[in-house]
C-alpha cells in the first residue's frame, strides 16, 4: 500500500511542477537503484561481495545501445538482446567464479570487469573505443517513441517497480531463503542439502540479468555509453550505493542510489573534491549505522510507532 502510494506519487512528479533537471536526476537515480538492488542480491543476500558489478551494467548498455542503433530502437527488443548477452555471459562466468568465495570471488569478478573494460577500448569497430558508443536513438514501445524527460522517467519508474516487486518475491521465496542461509553459514547450508554452488550460480546470473536491465535503461537515457561504464570505479560506486543504503534489504540500496545521485550533484556544484565530501558522509553513516540509511529509517520508524505488540 505504502509502496504503491509512493510509486504513484513519484510518477506524478513531472506533472506537479518538478523541474526537468530534477526529473533527470531522479531518472538516473532510479536506474542506479535497479543496479544497486541487483548487487544487493549478491552482497546482502548471498554474501558474495563483488568488485566487478559494473561489468553486468556496462555490458547491458553496450549490447542494448548497439542493437538499438543498428537494428531497431524498440525497447523490448533491445532489452531482450541485452539480456540474452548479459545472462549468457553470466551463466558462463558464473559457473567459474562461484567456485570461490570471499576475497577470491571479489578479485576474480573485478578481473572479469577489467577484461570487458579493455575489450570496450580495443574492439573499435563495434565499441568505438575510448570515444564510446554514441547516437543511440530514443527507445520505442509499440511503435511510439518514448521522449526523454517525463516519458522516459515513467518508463524507468515502471521498470523499477517491477524489478523491486520481482526481487522482493525472489528473496522471500524458498530459494531466496537458501541464499540467506548460504550467506549466514555456507557449511551449514550445505549440510541441509542446499547445493551451494548451484544456488550461488543462479543468484549471480539473476543479479547480472537485473543489472543488465539497468544498463539498458541507462544507454537509452544517455543516448550512448563509454568504456568508463565498465570501469572499476563504477563497480565501487554501486557498492557504495548499496552499503550506504543498507544491504540485505533491497529497499536500502534503492535509497542509497537516490542519496548517491543527489549528494553527488550537491557536492560537485559546491566542492571540488566532491568524492572526498561524499566519502566522509559515507563513512559517518556507515559507522554510525552499520545497516545504512535503511537502518536509520527503520529506527525512525520504530521511534514514531513505538512497539504495538
Amino acid at each position: 500500500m505504502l509502496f504503491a502510494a509512493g510509486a504513484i506519487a513519484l510518477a506524478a512528479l513531472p506533472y506537479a511542477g518538478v523541474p526537468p533537471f530534477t526529473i533527470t536526476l531522479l531518472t538516473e537515480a532510479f536506474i542506479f537503484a535497479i543496479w544497486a538492488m541487483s548487487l544487493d542480491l549478491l552482497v546482502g543476500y548471498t554474501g558474495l561481495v563483488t568488485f566487478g558489478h559494473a561489468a553486468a551494467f556496462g555490458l547491458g548498455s553496450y549490447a542494448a545501445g548497439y542493437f538499438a542503433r543498428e537494428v531497431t530502437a524498440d525497447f523490448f527488443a533491445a532489452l531482450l538482446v541485452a539480456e540474452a548477452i548479459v545472462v549468457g555471459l553470466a551463466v558462463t562466468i558464473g559457473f567459474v567464479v562461484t567456485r570461490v568465495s570471499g576475497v577470491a570471488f571479489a578479485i576474480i569478478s573485478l578481473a572479469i570487469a577489467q577484461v570487458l573494460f579493455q575489450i570496450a577500448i580495443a574492439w573499435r569497430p563495434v565499441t568505438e573505443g575510448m570515444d564510446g558508443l554514441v547516437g543511440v536513438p530514443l527507445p520505442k514501445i509499440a511503435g511510439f517513441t518514448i521522449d526523454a524527460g517525463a516519458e522516459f522517467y515513467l518508463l524507468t519508474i515502471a521498470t523499477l517497480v517491477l524489478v523491486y516487486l520481482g526481487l522482493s518475491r525472489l528473496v522471500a521465496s524458498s530459494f531466496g531463503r537458501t541464499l540467506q542461509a548460504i550467506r549466514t553459514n555456507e557449511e551449514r547450508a550445505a549440510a541441509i542439502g542446499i547445493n551451494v554452488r548451484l544456488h550461488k550460480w543462479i543468484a549471480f546470473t539473476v543479479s547480472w540479468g537485473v543489472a543488465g536491465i539497468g544498463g539498458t535503461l541507462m544507454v537509452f537515457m544517455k543516448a550512448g555509453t563509454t568504456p568508463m561504464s565498465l570501469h572499476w570505479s563504477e563497480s565501487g560506486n554501486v557498492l557504495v550505493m548499496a552499503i550506504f543504503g543498507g544491504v540485505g534489504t533491497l529497499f536500502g540500496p534503492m535509497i542509497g542510489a537516490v542519496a548517491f545521485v543527489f549528494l553527488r550533484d550537491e557536492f560537485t556544484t559546491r566542492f571540488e573534491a566532491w568524492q572526498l565530501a561524499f566519502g566522509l558522509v559515507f563513512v559517518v553513516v556507515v559507522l554510525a549505522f552499520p545497516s545504512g540509511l535503511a537502518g536509520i529509517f527503520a529506527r525512525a520508524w520504530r521511534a514514531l510507532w513505538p512497539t504495538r505488540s
Partner: protein
Amino acid sequence: MADALVVEELSKSFGALRAVDGVGFAVKDGDVHSLIGPNGAGKTTVFNCISGFLRPAEGRVLLRGEDVTAWPPHRLIPAGLARTFQITKVFGDLTVLENVALAARSRLGQNLRMWRRASKVTSANVEALEILEMLGLAENASANADHLAHGDKRILEIAIALALRPRLLMLDEPTAGMSAGETEHIGKLVRRIAARTSVLLVEHDMEMVLGISDQVTVMTQGRVIASGTPDAISRDTNVQDAYLGALDARNL
C-alpha cells in the same frame, strides 16, 4: 537387510599427517553406534569424509548398501544422511524457527522454488515447530539463533538435522561444552531419536556413551583399535590402556 552405514578402509591425510588411516566399521540399522577416542584421533575427519565435506583419499562409504563415497552433501542428504557439527554451526542471524524450516523445505524439494513465499510453505513451518516442541525449543522459535544459550544452540543443531528426516543421523560431540544436566538430557534425546533412525555418535562423555550405545568403535591416532558392545569395550584391555585408563587417570 543392509547395514545403515558401512565404512571400509577409509584414509585421509593432511600433509604428512595421516589423520584417518584405514578406518572401517559398520552401523547396524536402528543402532546407536558411538565413535570414541581422544582428541585428535580423527573422529571428526571420519565424519567429514562420510558426509561429503572431505574427499577421502582411499576407502569406501556405503549407505544402506549403496556406494556413496565422495558424494557431495546435497546428494547425501536426500539419500538419508544428516549430520551436526562439533563446532556449532547454526544460521545465526535467522530465527530459530527459520533455521529448522530451511532444512524442512530443503527436504521437501523446495530449494529452487523462486516465487512462492517461503513463509507459505506451511508444511515446513508446522513440521519445524513440531520438532522445536519435541526438543523443548518452541518458546524460542522467533528468537534469532545467535541469541540462544550455548546448550540450546547445540540442541538446535540436532533440530535442524532432524528436519531432514535422516535414516542415519550423525552427531559430532552434541554435548560439547554442556553441563552435566544438559548432557544427561541429550543422552535421553539421542535414545528417543534412535527409535526412528540409526545414530552415529561422536562423544566424549564416557558414562553417556556406555549408557546409550548399542555398539562402540574406539579410535586412536587415525586407527580403529576396538569395536564392540559397551560391555566388551569397557573390559577391553587395549582400550583401557590407550584411552579409558588415560581418562580415568585424568578424572581422579
